[in-house]
């Protein structure tokens, strides 16, 4: 509660310097009460991971299908976490996020594709 009063106090003082400093230091979500969204997102992430683990542990599907399914589960979880924890839809503009996400995707894809290429061992000798 102390925090809420702090925030309203600063909303009243339209000073440039203070807004920069405090706006970036203080998380905003507590203004909405108990963070149900985050808790549910966390539980859902755990469930998705557990599901992937169970599928692999018990060899539920043939290998190729298994890999496809856990990849789908991984993408689902990544999207979930971006939405719930990374404030993907809370920002004013999405231009920056598109750039950064694109860069992240580019890096990750590059590293994975290169790793596959490297581990194919197309050695001319040996």
């Amino acid at each position: 509660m102390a925090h809420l009063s702090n925030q309203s106090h600063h909303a009243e003082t339209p000073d440039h310097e203070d807004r920069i400093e405090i706006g970036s230091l203080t998380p905003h979500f507590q203004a909405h009460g108990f963070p149900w969204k985050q808790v549910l997102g966390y539980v859902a992430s755990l469930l998705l991971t557990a599901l992937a683990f169970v599928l692999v542990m018990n060899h539920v599907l043939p290998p190729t299908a298994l890999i496809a399914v856990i990849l789908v589960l991984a993408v689902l979880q990544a999207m979930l976490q971006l939405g719930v924890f990374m404030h993907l839809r809370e920002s004013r503009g999405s231009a920056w996020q598109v750039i950064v996400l694109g860069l992240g995707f580019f890096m990750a894809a590059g590293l994975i594709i290169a790793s596959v290429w490297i581990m194919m061992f197309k050695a001319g000798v040996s």
Partner: protein
Amino acid sequence: MSHIIAELFPPSTLRLFELIADVLIVLTTVSIVGVLTYTKKWVWLWREWLTSVDHKRIGIMYLIAALVMLFRGGVDALLLRTQLAFPNNHFLGPEHYDEIFTTHGTIMIFFMAMPFLFALFNVAVPLMIGARDVAFPRLNAVSFWLFAFGALLLNISFVIGGSPNAGWTAYPPLTELRFNPSVGENYYFLSLLIAGIGTTITGINFMVTILRMRAPGMTLMKMPMFVWTVLVTGALIIFAFPPLTVSLALTLFDRLFGSSFFTLGHGGMPMMFVNLFWLFGHPEVYIVVLPAFGIFSEVVPVFSDKKLYGYPIMVASVLAITVLSYGVWVHHFFTMGAGPGVNAFFGVSTMLIAIPTGVKIFNWVLTMWGGRIRFTVAMLWQLAFIPAFLIAGATGVLLATVPVDYQMHNSYFLIAHFHFALIGGTVFGVLSGMYYWWPKMFGYMLNERQGKVAFWLFFIGFLVTFVPQYMLGLEGMTRRMYTYPPGLGWSSLNLVSTIGAFTQGAGFLVIVYNVLWSMRYGERDLTGDPWNGRTLEWSIPSPAPEYNFAIVPVVHDRDAWWDMKQSGKSEAFKVKSSAIRPVHMPKRSAMPFLLGLSFFVVGFGMTFSWWVIAIIGGLGVLASLLYGAFDYDDFEELDPEVIRRTEAGLGRLQA
């Protein structure tokens, strides 16, 4: 009971050095506890340091930890060099030698170089950008305590349970359970996993701090160069640490839970570990060297009395290095034989990195060109860095030539190359930064004369150690061999190298003496600007007050403080009493320390597969995180009267 004791203290922990270490640890612990109890400082320690979230204090704690780790890693190095001083020497046995080179490498990279840099990040970055703390002060403390307890976990392996022994790279199958059943490797994986969480958080924290909390007017292209390098280091950490985490965690699964990710049998792929490790490992080289570049880019202009030459090109070359550093990792394992296509690609990309690095070296030299150079200790380290790093880079390009690399791979040529890069780049850089920012951290100067003695001892010792190792590599000596027969032409070079190592050790001791002497007799820095500095951290008193800036400065130029001094506005920078308003400050918290402690318990329990202990630690982790997540009362207002009194006491209050 005897079973547990046998597990905790296997024969490898009952050798001479381990017993000496036991005695030293007990004596140090007893004396620290004794002094704290005698002087009644426990509460002070807890309130002012262990629960502090102040970036300046966290920086100092990082610095102390890094210096202690430099000592530990340095002693390891001296043991190794003593063993290698003479042919057929049996000072250390082969297993003992393996353990010591493993901990030497691991400690120097993860628990010396990185925390030393994080110390300087913490001390300098918020002050350079005119901020009052980092973006997430409590997470910053979490980072520190995860690092500290991770380091503790690795260090106790020497005396409890046995050290890791598979090299700092921990390649399988050397780490595979059936070939390496002792708990040493578990220590390695768990301590790096724990410290790695902290490092990742630091990367995010400083990126957000730099992107969001700069003083008004400080556009990206007006940031000090060190801040730029910290920003890209954050980006490097964010992308480089996940592959490390994955490779460490999966190997741990192999060892503890019987999975087969990297095992020789059951379809495991040991070389995939190598691939993932270096996917992290090469960016890691730039994680530890780019901030050192940044430090030099601050030190050179100040002590040449000129602005940094070619700032935009410096920024561009840092960005180019960042991107390129992700495309070179295979050069660490060309000899795996991935094929001519792969090796040629990564050989060329490696050579490309020499271009932006060369650009930076030219820019530092051109900054000095025509300047009024002051040969301070900070500047001497920079001047030594240029030739050292040039040699490191040139030999690096040699190693990037794939056919040459097949000859040189894992020889002492390689050892000399990366020690030139990591000592000549990172260690010289952090020592330069330490001497440069010391007055801002502690309010007094380190004695220059003693610092110069330390510098010359260390620099000459460095050359005497590693230049012969280049030759040893060309003569065919390979890394990680614990002894060698006479008559191979290696004996005298090895002896010279060992003499050099001890000279570096002497240099380190002089630095320690320098610090202790200066604590008592060092010149106090009353101006806050002892070097005639150019960036904002020199505009405030030394040491910086708790709130950093009484009034957040407005930036107009790249060298903001220099600009204020030149345009005669530095007097106007003195604070008007009426302008001081309450400052929003983060509250101290016990959560980061307790979280780190809980992780330590988890790590210790998992190392020995004592699950009850691990689960108890895990509950501690959960409790700390829950408490941290729901503790909204984490900021407090600092009374403007306190700021007024502090500033008036420093003579900085305008009438």
